[in-house]
């Protein structure tokens, strides 16, 4: 098993290569999930603002508009 990790003396080159491969792909795969959460959160906030505006008139509006 130690021989496997030593990679015939080339461990310092082989393992970083595999680490970069896995880390870059993991980051690539996680980024859209984070983006999706942010997009939906912002959309819900926008929808909530719209709903509030429809229920109560804006504070700055004229009495005739109320």
């Amino acid at each position, binding site marked *: 098993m130690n021989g496997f990790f030593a990679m015939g003396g080339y461990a310092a080159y082989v393992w970083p290569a595999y680490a970069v491969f896995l880390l870059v792909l993991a980051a*690539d795969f996680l980024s859209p999930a984070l983006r999706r959460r942010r997009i939906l959160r912002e*959309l819900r906030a926008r929808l909530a603002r719209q709903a509030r505006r429809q229920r109560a008139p804006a504070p700055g509006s004229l009495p005739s508009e109320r």
Partner: protein
Amino acid sequence: MANWIPLWVHKLGSPPIFYRFAGAVRPWALALAALLGAVALYGGLVLAPQDRYQHDAYRIIFIHVPCAWMSLFIYGAMAVASFVALVWRVKLAEVVAMESAPIGAAFTFVTLVTGSLWGKPMWGTWWTWDARLTSELVLLFLYLGVIGLYHAFEDRRQGARAAAFLALIGIVNVPIVHFSVNWWNTLHQGSTVRILGPSKISGDMLWPLLTMMVATKCYYLASLCGRVRADLLELEGGKDWVRRIAEAEERA
């Protein structure tokens, strides 16, 4: 559009239908990528014998070469989607082209870094301005240019069209990368695996390589599905179907 195109193609071009389709494809593509990737890693790191001259250092090939293939394959896919986006103004094609670019850039980056890590023990240098290495670096810059141009516009669709045009022009670099080892005298070795004619590699090294190639293709599909889904939600933020998804997720 032409009558010979079946109806389901038109349907799949509709954002809500594609969103659901991509959501169904994604877990299968990811599972297949993980399974094949694990098999290929076991085959490449454990089962494959040592190389006579490069000993264990050659094992970088099992990620370096599939990533290099993907860097060219994704560029081709991005260029085809860009062409469709520019000619027929299909919104989905714009999204597919623009969301392919970061995945392609990731694979190109991994290709360059793993190549560098392989070059140091074998050639004695991390980097050399050889035709293959330089053209692959230009490929990375093309991907970054497409991503940057896309985000430089206030209007997303306008940015996508400008970036799609750049992606189409940049396709000239793909054959240059591929044939660079034949056209110029390079430090980088020539093709080992061939579609036409026998490959210059033994079978117990070849199968992990080809398995990893299929795994990276599946990974691209899975990653693309996730990215396109997120992008469609953003682009169609005002539509009812996106609103329903946002509300359903809040309740969950």
